[in-house]
């Protein structure tokens, strides 16, 4: 119950996942939730396709989640990440953390995001009017890990 990880093609309901998250524990003072959305910078994006590595994906996310759970003494932790075709404006993924204090809840959520970005086996392809392009990893994403 405390740590939940879901890798799925189906949409998820961010509002419903946020409702009641972290509730029930009297020691929970802070909940942080993050939602990643398909952005269309050019106005030309038809869709995004997310490829992943079934089997490794679940293991990699579970390991990252377990590290955050222990390191920030989280009361509850949720990661949902989708794969397959996604339209602009659709939800790609979310994380949620519940902790005693706000600093722990924020740090754990940012840690999860930084690691999911560069260490979970997902690859994004943007399909637009001019064809398809694989989204490149950035040096900033790799550098973000040095913070932890």
């Amino acid at each position, binding site marked *: 119950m405390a740590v939940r990880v879901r890798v799925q093609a189906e949409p998820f309901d961010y509002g419903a996942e946020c409702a009641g998250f972290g509730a029930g524990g009297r020691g929970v003072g802070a909940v942080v939730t993050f939602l*990643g959305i398909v952005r269309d910078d050019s106005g030309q994006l038809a869709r995004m396709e997310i*490829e992943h*590595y079934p*089997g*490794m994906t679940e*293991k*990699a996310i579970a390991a990252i989640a377990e590290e955050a759970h222990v390191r920030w003494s989280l009361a509850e932790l949720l990661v949902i*990440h989708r794969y397959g075709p996604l339209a602009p404006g659709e939800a*790609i*993924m979310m994380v949620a953390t519940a902790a005693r204090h706000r600093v722990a809840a924020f740090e754990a959520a940012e840690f999860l*995001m930084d690691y*999911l*970005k*560069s*260490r*979970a*086996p*997902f*690859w*994004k*392809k943007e399909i637009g009017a001019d064809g398809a392009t*694989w*989204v*490149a*990893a950035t040096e900033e*994403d*790799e550098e973000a890990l040095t913070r932890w």
Partner: protein
Amino acid sequence: MIDVLYFAWVRERIGLPRERVDTSAATVADLVAELRSREDRYAAAFADLRSLRVALDQQLADFSAPLAGVREVAFFPPMTGG
């Protein structure tokens, strides 16, 4: 025999998502050298190892890692999750 998986543009360049490879390569780097020498599409996919990542039995690894006991090797570009 080892299962070799390809993802994202590595998969597209090689033209298949996975194959079984009969190899006695000692390390990932040795396996890459074997694959490169097969055909142009492999040479193209493995042209620049700095733009590639490798996982052994679904754990990230280095190109210098030994293959002894490994059942599944995966090659892919740097990940872009989140």
